[in-house]
């Protein structure tokens, strides 16, 4: 299921594709499609876009071809900052200003739906409504992602990428790790395992390993999962709880196995070719990173950008480098000619069978203060 794609060939390939697609043909095609609906006078001069690191197409020199194409077409410069490293940390930075009705100097931010923050932002009305009049390409959104419980009509958000949470392991340092139970109890892995500190990432996997349903978590389910984790922590099985900083540890070989994100493992293979990703036998989790417009941001320009991104050809360019799950229908067809290997990579374009084994976490569990307190205690922080 995993592909050994070398990061350098990623970059080379994306550059090649970018070059091929930048040829006048595609540019005029885009122009014809886009400019009809958009009123250039309403566009801001600069779009401030905050995102996670390594989450967009890039070539050597730090340039982003898709953003450059956007600028070329609409004349809007994009100030792209990769300053989101953790949902809670980023939210902590911006919530004070948002609560006072102040802007945060951003037009688009990206937050994950397996934390309470997208739901909170929408509920508190700290986000602007998208302008659907310039978003005809919303029709390209994958059907499965169209009606999340916290934004049923996609009035405030659009997915940027989806991802799978599963098991990662280093096949040079261990035999394949295929179940959560193995991760938590195999003595050979003692002290070399990491788990996600975010409850929304780790909890569904453990709940599934217990045979319970992560989409409906009650107290008994939660306590069973917690007990399993506590046992592993006490036994010294877990080296540490991490955010996205498990990646350097796996790359170095300090950590042999752990819960990981699908796209990361593909990207990390350039650091360490022995890293593999699997969906646990009992099932894995799927989450979505969503683009939101914080209050004070320009919803019109942001919506124009989102519409631009939701073209299969553009999404394909990003997908090819990022290697997470693409929310835009048709992107894999767009990739087929330029990069058939990526187009057929099931980590990027998962099959129906895979999707059936992936679950979303019960959003009410994320906001339950009792669960949060117990979870913090587990982390020992």
């Amino acid at each position: 299921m995993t592909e050994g794609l070398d990061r350098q060939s990623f970059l080379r390939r994306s550059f090649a594709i970018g070059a091929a697609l930048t040829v006048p043909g595609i540019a005029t095609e885009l122009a014809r499609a886009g400019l009809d609906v958009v009123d250039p006078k309403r566009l801001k001069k600069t779009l401030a876009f905050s995102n996670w690191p390594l989450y967009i197409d890039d070539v050597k020199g730090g340039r982003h071809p898709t953003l450059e194409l956007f600028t070329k077409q609409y004349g809007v410069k994009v100030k792209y900052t990769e300053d989101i490293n953790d949902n809670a940390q980023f939210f902590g930075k911006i919530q004070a200003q948002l609560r006072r009705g102040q802007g945060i100097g951003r037009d688009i931010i990206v937050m994950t739906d397996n934390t309470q923050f997208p739901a909170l932002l929408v509920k508190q009305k700290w986000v602007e409504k998208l302008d659907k009049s310039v978003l005809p390409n919303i029709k390209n959104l994958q059907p499965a992602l169209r009606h999340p419980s916290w934004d049923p009509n996609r009035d405030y958000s659009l997915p940027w990428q989806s991802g799978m949470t599963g098991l990662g392991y280093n096949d040079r340092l261990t035999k394949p790790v295929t179940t959560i139970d193995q991760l938590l109890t195999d003595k050979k892995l003692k002290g070399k395992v990491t788990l996600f500190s975010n409850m929304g990432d780790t909890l569904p996997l453990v709940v599934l390993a217990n045979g319970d349903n992560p989409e409906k978590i009650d107290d008994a389910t939660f306590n069973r999962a917690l007990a399993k984790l506590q046992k592993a922590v006490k036994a010294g099985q877990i080296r540490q709880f991490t955010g996205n900083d498990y990646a350097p540890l796996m790359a170095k070989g300090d950590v042999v196995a752990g819960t990981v994100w699908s796209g990361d493992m593909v990207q990390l293979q350039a650091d360490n070719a022995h890293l593999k990703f699997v969906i646990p036998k009992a099932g894995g989790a799927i989450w979505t990173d969503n683009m939101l417009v914080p209050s004070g941001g320009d919803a019109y320009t942001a919506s124009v950008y989102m519409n631009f991104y939701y073209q299969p050809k553009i999404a394909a360019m990003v997908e090819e480098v990022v290697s997470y799950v693409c929310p835009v229908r048709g992107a894999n067809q767009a990739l087929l000619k330029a990069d058939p290997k990526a187009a057929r990579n099931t980590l990027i374009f998962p099959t129906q069978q895979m999707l059936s084994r992936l679950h979303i976490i019960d959003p009410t569990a994320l906001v339950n203060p009792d669960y949060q307190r117990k979870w913090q205690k587990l982390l020992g922080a």
Partner: protein
Amino acid sequence: MTSTAADLPTTPRRVRVRPLAFVRRHLLTAYALLAFAYLLVPIAVVIMFSFNHPKGRFNYVWQGFTWDNWRRWDAVPGLSSALVNSLEIAAIASVCATALGTLIALALVRHSFHGRSTTNLLVFLPMSTPEIVLGASLLTLFLSANAQLGFWTIVIAHIMFCISFVVVTVKARLVGFDRHLEEAAMDLGANEWTTFRKVTLPLIAPAILAALLLCFALSIDDFVITNFNAGTTVTFPLFVWGAARAATPPQINVVGTAIFAIAVTVMLVNVLWQRRSAAGSS
């Protein structure tokens, strides 16, 4: 007279050199060398890895030598703007803090007034408060005042914690200052302001400069207080913090090495210049 001194029996002042003393003497030197190695090895690692050529996102394993990182040090998005922010903040904060702190130092040393011990306490307390408390309390203030967190809140925070260091540095020089020079100037007809400008200021200038440089260094390196009060602005240490989680490009080591090299050069020049002027005046 000297012959009398030569006639007196003298007690030997030096202990006879024995083998054990020899070992002891050089043991200390050997230890000192080890300790220096301990201090410098991490720095060597930083410098070495600035030349590393990692294939992937992280810079923890040596994979080959390259000049690329130095040639294209700003190839990492966000690094150069973070560095520029840090330099600007450090420049503004150090100038302001040095000015404010020097005034306080002058008052403390030269004048008598009520509330001297309170002033001492107020100046000393920030240095003995953990940074995390300083940063957190300022954040609380800014939030209550509805201030926009960003560049200027960082500057304000940096000025605050630097003032104490300036006072201590300048005060040390002022205390050992020979007032006779000023009195001489005034005897020769200079008024107070002229005396200050032409005699005092040039003589305490080295201390003011040292304080300025100290502030600059503290400001550029500050992480904890800045992290609390930066909002979405990014300074170089904040950039490194974020990078440590996602990808540690070698360019971070490049900038770190560059800052280190510049600082050490400045200090080296200072030390050598002091030795020269000391040699000249003796």
